[in-house]
């Protein structure tokens, strides 16, 4: 039993008292966090053909919505250059052709993008936050709170989305893109809340959750630190799909002319092409219809692909394979770096 040893000596040998031989600077920690939450998922996404393509598509739209609007001139009416085909004039404005009143389609598409992105972002954040909060509280608390919240959720989920949106758009007449995004997801959160609750129910009695509860951590800490990370895959997937449904609904409502608009939207351009039946009657001016159609479809396609690929990021088996590959690479690097005093990340990976 080691009775002859002094207590101090014993303490030194205890693994609980040993100290790390070097301190991690703030920079190192950021590096690891960044590596784990940004670089690694991006690498997994990039290794999947769907993820690569989706990432490129979505990044392209974000670039058009931020840098593109500065480079590309604002759309303006020009009676001379009506109904130009794509590439007919060597001008950036008419790269994608022009519409019936001579507005270039490229400026029209580009300048509608920022508003669209704002709508998607606001809608996805609002819809998902509400869904996660309701689902978490309902599933974790249980009892009467659960019953009441789920009854409300079921009622909201049973209202058909589009008719409800029509009425809300008519009553509120929203113009602010953020507000539009919120209105369009006023019903979408219910599905997520149900899904989250179903995932939380079994998690409530898992050992590590029970342990932190026993340790006296507050409910919000337990939910944020122990439960929420397990729900991340579902939330990320729903983030993409909510953003997609915001595009579907907003372009649809703009197409119908049921949302008040101040500047052109993809749906408005689509509608103006649809209203001109002489345009529809010939293939010559098909670009007026196809450009907005493709603009919408490419973005939704990009989001779908990204959502599919995110499945890989969260799929532990794929992650493990990626980690293994990364470890192999790191070992090689460590062997060469250690003599030069290179910092190994393994020191605080636990």
């Amino acid at each position, binding site marked *: 039993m080691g009775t002859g040893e002094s207590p101090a000596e014993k303490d030194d040998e205890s693994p609980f008292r040993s100290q790390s031989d070097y301190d991690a600077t703030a920079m190192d920690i950021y590096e690891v966090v960044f590596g784990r939450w940004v670089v690694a998922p991006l690498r997994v996404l990039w290794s999947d053909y769907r993820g690569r393509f989706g990432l490129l598509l979505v990044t392209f739209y974000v670039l058009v919505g931020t840098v593109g609007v500065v480079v590309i001139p604002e759309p303006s009416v020009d009676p001379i250059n009506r109904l130009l085909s794509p590439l007919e004039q060597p001008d950036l404005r008419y790269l994608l052709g022009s519409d019936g009143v001579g507005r270039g389609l490229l400026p029209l598409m580009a300048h509608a993008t920022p508003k669209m992105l704002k709508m998607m972002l606001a809608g996805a954040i609002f819809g998902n936050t509400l869904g996660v909060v309701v689902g978490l509280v309902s599933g974790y608390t249980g009892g009467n709170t659960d019953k009441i919240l789920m009854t409300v959720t079921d009622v909201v989920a049973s209202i058909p989305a589009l008719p409800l949106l029509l*009425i809300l758009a008519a009553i509120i007449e929203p113009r602010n893109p953020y507000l539009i995004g919120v209105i369009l997801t006023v019903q979408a959160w219910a599905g997520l809340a149900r899904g989250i609750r179903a995932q939380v129910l079994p998690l409530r009695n898992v050992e590590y959750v029970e342990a932190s509860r026993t340790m006296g951590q507050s409910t919000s800490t337990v939910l944020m630190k122990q439960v929420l990370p397990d729900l991340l895959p579902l939330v990320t997937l729903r983030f993409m799909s909510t953003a997609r449904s915001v595009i579907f609904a907003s372009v649809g409502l703009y197409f119908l002319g049921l949302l008040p608009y101040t500047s052109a939207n993809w749906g408005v351009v689509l509608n103006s092409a*649809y209203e001109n039946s002489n345009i529809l009657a010939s293939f010559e001016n098909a670009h007026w219809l196809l450009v907005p159609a493709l603009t919408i479809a490419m973005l939704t396609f990009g989001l779908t692909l990204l959502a*599919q690929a995110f499945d890989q990021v969260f799929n532990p088996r794929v992650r493990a394979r990626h980690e293994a590959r990364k470890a192999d690479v790191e070992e090689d690097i460590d062997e060469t770096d250690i003599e030069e005093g290179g910092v190994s990340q393994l020191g605080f990976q636990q």
Partner: protein
Amino acid sequence: MGYLRNRLLQAVITLYSIITLGFVFIRMMPGSPSAYLRAEIQQNPGAYGLPPNPTLEQINDVMQTQMNYTPGPIWEKYISYMQGAVQGDFGTSVIVDPGASNVQLILEAAPWTIFISSAGLVYGLVAGIVLGSLMAYYEGSKMDVGLTVSMLAASSVPYYIVAILLLFLFSYNLEWFPTGGRFNTNTTPGFNYPFIAGVFNHAALPILSGITIGFGGNALSLRANSIRLLGEEHIRNAELRGLSTYTISTRYLARNAILPMYTGIVLGLAGLIGGSIILEEIFVYRGMGKLMYDATVQRDFPLMTTSLIFTTVIFVAGTLIADFTYSLIDPRAEQSSMG
């Protein structure tokens, strides 16, 4: 039977809430409908039983009756509204078809919408199941990858864009199908060949666009279900027992793979009926969706809210039927809900 009783209770709560919400919406309507109605009466007094150049008082009289204005505190109005709702009376249309019963208007339009929606749903399901099982069978092959990508693309293109492109291609340029309407106006409605052929001819493109709402997603989920099942023990066991491939694929695989899609069918139908608002406007198809669109554009709030309530009723009824019949299809569900 506790589960079914709860579901029934839930349905009653949902219907009560949506009808109350309808009341709130009608109360919340901005000033525009009355302004719209006033302009309508001034433009066309004859339609409201007034002489040309009516006086302000005459207009106000008509407006009071048209807008269903009943004096009294708000709770009295709520009670009379609920009484009417229980008896199936949701008031009258204000602008779209002044004086006509909302329920009557919707019931006249509903069969057309249910016709194109259910046809779109059934074809979408069949196409999804066939393609999904093909993809699962040839998993990992070039065909699987190609089909998966095309299904992803199909499910990410909004259905109304498909509708416009179909209209552009098949109606305006190839002239195979009419550009709008519900039936051939030269035929006499009834049970005769030219009329029925016209109905199907006019419905073809709306149905085709409706198929695209669900079929990509159906195919992908069936593929995922089947692949997950293929790895399971009972399939292996069936193979070891020497059962034929046909028996395994139909009785062991297809049944279980289609099962999770069953409750999604109702959701699909609700999506189609909601989507009909845009589709019917594109194809000028006078169904429930077109009615809802007209009501929204003209700010006919009573008709709008009644349409919303009506679609919710269809959805709730559909969900109930799916829940009640699920145990017939999957005996395991009954056991778990009983226990």
